[in-house]
C-alpha cells in the first residue's frame, strides 16, 4: 500500500508519527549505548571519571583476570540453572492451569506476584532466610542449631527462581492455550505411548512459548544485581554487581562500561541464537 501523496506530504507523515519516538530512541537508547562502548575503551581518571587514552586495556584486564572470568561463569551458571528450575516448576504448572476448571482464578494467582513490586518479592525472602527467619524457626523447632542462610548462593537461587517464575508461566500458558490437542489423539492413534506421544505431538507446539519464556527469565537473571546484592551480599558476585560496584564505590566507569559491554554481548549472543530459530515474530513474543 503506497498511498498517493507528494514526497513532501509523505515525509511530513513519517516525521509526525515515527519522528518523535525515533528521535527519543536514538537519543536515549542508541547514543547511550555508543557512549558505553566509547567509555569502555577509555581509562580511569583520578576521580573515577573516564579519560583518554583509549585502548582495549579494560577488556584485556577483564579477560585476563580469573576473578572476572569466574564472575562471568558464575552469572551464566546461576542464570542458566535458575532458568532451568523455573522451567521445571513453570512448565507443568502452565498445563495444570490450562486444564483446570478454575483457570481464570489460577491465572490471577500467577499475575498477582507478576505485578507485585520486584523489591518486595526479593525482600520477602530475606524475611524467610534471615537468622531469625521462617526457615530457621522450622529448623530450631526440631532442636537443630540455626543455619547461616543469609547471605548464600542458595538464597540467590531461590529468589531468582521466585522472581522470574511468573515471567515464564504467562507466555508459556498462552502457548499451551493454543495447543491443538487433536494431534495427541492422532499420535495415540498411530500407536505412540503417552510419553512419546507428548514429546511428538504436544511439546513442539509449546516450543516457541518455551523458548520465549526461557529468554525472558535468562536475560534478567544473568543481568540482575539486586538479588545477589540483597541475598548474596558480598558472597555472590555477578556481572551486575561488578558493574554496579564500578559505577558506585569502586569509581571506575571505564571498567564498568567494559563489563557492561561484555554482559550485553552475552545477552545479544543468546538473542541472536533465538532470533535465528524463531525469527522476528519470536522477538515479538518477548513483550
Amino acid at each position, binding site marked *: 500500500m503506497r498511498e498517493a501523496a507528494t514526497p513532501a506530504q509523505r515525509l511530513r507523515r513519517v516525521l509526525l508519527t515515527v519522528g*518523535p519516538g525515533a528521535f527519543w530512541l536514538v537519543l536515549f537508547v542508541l547514543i547511550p549505548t555508543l557512549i558505553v562502548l566509547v567509555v569502555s575503551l577509555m581509562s580511569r581518571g583520578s576521580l573515577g571519571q573516564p579519560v583518554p587514552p583509549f585502548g582495549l586495556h579494560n577488556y584485556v584486564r577483564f579477560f585476563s583476570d580469573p576473578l572476572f572470568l569466574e564472575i562471568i561463569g558464575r552469572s551464566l551458571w546461576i542464570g542458566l540453572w535458575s532458568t532451568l528450575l523455573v522451567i521445571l516448576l513453570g512448565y507443568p504448572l502452565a498445563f495444570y492451569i490450562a486444564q483446570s476448571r478454575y483457570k481464570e482464578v489460577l491465572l490471577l494467582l*500467577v499475575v498477582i506476584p507478576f505485578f507485585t513490586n520486584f523489591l518486595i518479592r526479593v*525482600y*520477602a525472602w530475606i*524475611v524467610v532466610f534471615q537468622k531469625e527467619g521462617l526457615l530457621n524457626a522450622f529448623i530450631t523447632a526440631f532442636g537443630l542449631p540455626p543455619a547461616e542462610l543469609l547471605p548464600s548462593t542458595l538464597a540467590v537461587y531461590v529468589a531468582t527462581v521466585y522472581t522470574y517464575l511468573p515471567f515464564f508461566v504467562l507466555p508459556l500458558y498462552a502457548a499451551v492455550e493454543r495447543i491443538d490437542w487433536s494431534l495427541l489423539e492422532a499420535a495415540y492413534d498411530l500407536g505412540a505411548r503417552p510419553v512419546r506421544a507428548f514429546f511428538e505431538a504436544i511439546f513442539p507446539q509449546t516450543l516457541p512459548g518455551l523458548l520465549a519464556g526461557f529468554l525472558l527469565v535468562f536475560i534478567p537473571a544473568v543481568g540482575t544485581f539486586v538479588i545477589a546484592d540483597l541475598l548474596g551480599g558480598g558472597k555472590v558476585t555477578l556481572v551486575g554487581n561488578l558493574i554496579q560496584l564500578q559505577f558506585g564505590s569502586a569509581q571506575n566507569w571505564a571498567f*564498568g562500561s567494559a563489563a557492561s559491554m561484555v554482559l550485553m554481548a552475552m*545477552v545479544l549472543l543468546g538473542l541472536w541464537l533465538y532470533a535465528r530459530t524463531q525469527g522476528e515474530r519470536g522477538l*515479538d513474543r518477548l513483550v
Partner: protein
Amino acid sequence: MKRILSFHAGLVFAFLYLPILVIVALSFNQSRFGVRFTGFTLEWYARLFSNERILEYLTNTLIVAVVSTAVSTVLGTLLAVGLVRYEFRLKNALRYLLYVPVVVPDVVMGISLLLLFDVVRDAIGWPRLSLFTIILAHISFQIAYVTLVVRARLVLLDPTLEEAAKDLGATSWQTFREVTLPLIMPGVMAGALLAFSLSLDDFVITFFTAGSGSTTLPLYIYSSVKLGIRPEIHALSTLMVGVTVLVILLGVLFWKKR
C-alpha cells in the same frame, strides 16, 4: 498423571505465596524481630504513616509513573502507527532499535543513561540527576513496550477502514483520530497500563538515574532493606501488595464487564 500435576501446582503456588503471606502476617506482629507471632498490632502501620518522607516518596513515584506513561504512550502509539502504515528509509534499523530496551539488562540500560546524562551535563551543565532524569529514563524503556503492544493491535486492524476514511475526505490526522485511534484503543490502554506498572516496579534504572531529593518508593525500600529488616517495611510491602491485588481485581472486573 493428573494427581501429580495438581500436587506440583499446589507446591508451586505455596512457593509463590508463602513469602508474601509471611510478610503480610508479620506486618501485624507485635514482636519487632523474628517470626514468632506474639500478638496483633497496627503499630507498624501507624509508624509508617507518621513518616512524612514516605508520602514524598510515594508522590515522587506517582509523578514519575504518570508523566512517563503519558509521554511514552503518545510517542509509542504514534511510532507504532508510522511503523505499520508507512514505508521509509532505516525502518528496519528502527525496528531493531525498538527491541533494545526490551532485551538489554536493566543495569546496562541504567549505566548507559547515567553516562549520557553525565556527558550532557559536562557539556551544558544540565540536567542534574533528579525526578526529571528518572522520567526521561523511564520513557526510554516504556516507549518500546507501548510501541510493541500497540503495533500488535494495529496489525489486526483492517487497513481498508482507514482507506475508507480517507476516501470520504478525512485527512491523515482526521483518519487517525476518528478511525484508527478508537479502534486500537484497547491496545493503547494495554500499552499504557504496562508502561505504568513497569515504571512503578522499576528499581534498577531509577537507581542509576536518581539524584538526591528524587527518592522513589523502590529506592526507599532498597535502602531500608540494606539496613536490615524493619516491621515498617513489612507494613509498606503489605500495603503495596494490597494495592496491586486491588488494581488487578478492578481491572479484571472492568474487563469482564465489557
